[in-house]
């Protein structure tokens, strides 16, 4: 087990919502994270997904020692986060996309200096590292700008640099691409991919941006209502939930719903019809048959994207392919 960076077993967090001083009895308990178990190994890049309010941020606060778990056990970099918060902080980097570690009134460069002092980075190491991060994240143009004058994308890159100056083993990111434009997103993604590949930094990423996931994560964990609902490969997720392909057929003129060897149009809109292909179907054969029997003007084959898969999982239209019995732990051992 030497290479496990995060080990969570039956990790649980319950919040008590007080009903105010006068309504003591109106307290309700919310289990934000419910007996979640998983292991993340050194060098992995894991996407931590789930609908709003699923418990992702709460999990991250426990991982970083900001919140104490209500029950269960948790080890990060070999430490108990809530007891060894300070020691752990020196070994991990965290970015909360909606907040900033930088000092609002100071130039970015000064914030990074203060971070260097906080994490006691040697001067020489700091210089090399800062130069590296400045180049990769393209910080140079705004190093001297007060943080309050930075755009969101610039600030986020500054925050990433601040989180990585002390060369942490584990980087935890809570929505680091929220609100960024496509170019900034691409910069951030490429940067994350590189530090994962080249420095071997383990990364746990929470995001609602599926581009992030498809580009970066080999493994995804999905949490829903506080429970770990899926833990496995991204491709496998598509397959196990039976992600299917849809043929969008455009006919010459409106026609009754197409029926073809057991495949029926599930939707029609004027001359356009949608046919869902069963997993075993041969798309080429179906297209040939369609062209032979109908006046087809155009055909498009659309794969169900990860977005559709997640949407239907979150809505409860589909069951998660397999429960997560401790995720990859068993398979990797």
């Amino acid at each position, binding site marked *: 087990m030497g290479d496990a960076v995060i080990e969570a077993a039956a990790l649980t967090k319950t*919040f008590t919502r007080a009903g105010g001083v006068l309504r003591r009895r109106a307290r309700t308990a919310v289990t934000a994270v419910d007996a979640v178990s998983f292991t993340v190994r050194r060098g992995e890049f894991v996407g931590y997904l789930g609908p709003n309010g699923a418990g992702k*941020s709460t999990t991250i*606060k426990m991982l*970083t*020692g*900001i*919140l*104490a778990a209500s029950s269960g056990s948790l080890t990060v970099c070999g430490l108990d986060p*809530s007891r060894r*918060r*300070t*020691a752990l*902080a*020196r070994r991990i980097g*965290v970015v*909360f996309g*909606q*907040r*900033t*570690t930088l*000092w609002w*009134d*100071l130039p970015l460069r*000064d914030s990074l*200096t*203060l971070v260097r*002092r*906080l*994490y*006691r980075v040697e001067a020489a190491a700091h210089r090399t590292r800062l130069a590296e991060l400045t180049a990769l994240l393209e910080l140079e143009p705004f190093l001297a700008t007060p943080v309050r004058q930075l755009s969101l994308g610039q600030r986020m890159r500054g925050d990433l640099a601040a989180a990585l100056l002390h060369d942490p083993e584990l980087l935890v990111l809570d929505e680091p691409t929220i609100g960024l434009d496509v170019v900034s997103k691409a910069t951030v993604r490429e940067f994350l991919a590189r530090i994962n590949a080249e420095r071997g930094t383990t990364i746990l990423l929470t995001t609602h941006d599926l581009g992030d996931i498809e580009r970066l994560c080999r493994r995804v964990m999905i949490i829903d209502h506080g429970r770990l609902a899926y833990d496995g490969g991204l491709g496998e997720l598509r397959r196990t939930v039976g992600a299917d392909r849809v043929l969008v057929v455009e006919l010459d003129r409106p026609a009754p719903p197409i029926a073809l060897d057991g495949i029926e149009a599930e939707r029609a809109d004027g001359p356009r019809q949608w046919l869902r292909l069963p997993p075993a179907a041969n798309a080429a054969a179906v297209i040939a048959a369609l062209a032979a029997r109908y006046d087809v003007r155009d055909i498009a084959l659309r794969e169900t994207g990860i977005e559709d898969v997640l949407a239907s999982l979150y809505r409860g239209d589909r069951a998660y392919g397999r429960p997560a019995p401790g995720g990859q732990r068993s398979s990797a051992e």
Partner: protein
Amino acid sequence: MGVLPWAWWFGFRRHSAYPLGALAEAVTNTAFGFMRAYVLLALWAARPALGGYDAADAVTFCFITQALIGPVQIFGGIDLTERIRTGDVAIDLHRPVGLQGWWLADDLGRAAAALLLRGGPPLLAGALVFPLTVPGPAASAAFAAAVLLAVVVGFALRYLVALSAFWVHDHRGPEAVALVLSLFFSGMILPLVVFPGALGSAAMALPWAALIQVPADVFLGRRTGAGLLGALGFQAGWALVLLGAGALLTRAARRRLVVHGG
């Protein structure tokens, strides 16, 4: 070297980043100083030697008070409160440094900036117009120590009020109570020496006396020798007790901590 001197330095820079705003406050404090000075002069004309002060002492007290408003932040408040309210305290808690020590260093930096930008002007303006009681070198050195301790006690009180935001979700209640106590029992409204009997003794024993009354008495040369040590010891004692309480409350807060926001 640890990070706290840097936190101090950056606190100083952060709070001296807008010198015009600070100077505007200094001007306001100076103007109020003159208004209070004339009220006190009228009072001392009616009751000479009230509380053992002569008229010059009373006016000097008034301008010291105005000069200390900024450094000891007599009206209360600390940026930490807002960070707890919005959940940004998560960032502070993630740093490899204790919460109270970090904020103390930052606040000492703030106080140093306030002393320079907001403390000097009222005292200078007062000295130009009125015959103030001026301390000798020994009393000046003692006054510097007393102001430092006053800032620490002021911080410790405000830190405790800020931490209450972890429990009481509306932080304005504790802040309002703290403000009244701080104005009344520090000597800000009237020197504590004019409070009669038991009220006076009680006021002199409470921590707020360490904020203004004690440094002012040191400045006026009313505490010397053993009395001076007693005065500084009184401030240091409250500083230790309150910082200790802050440490305990920080730990308690961490245990039942609710960090707001996603």
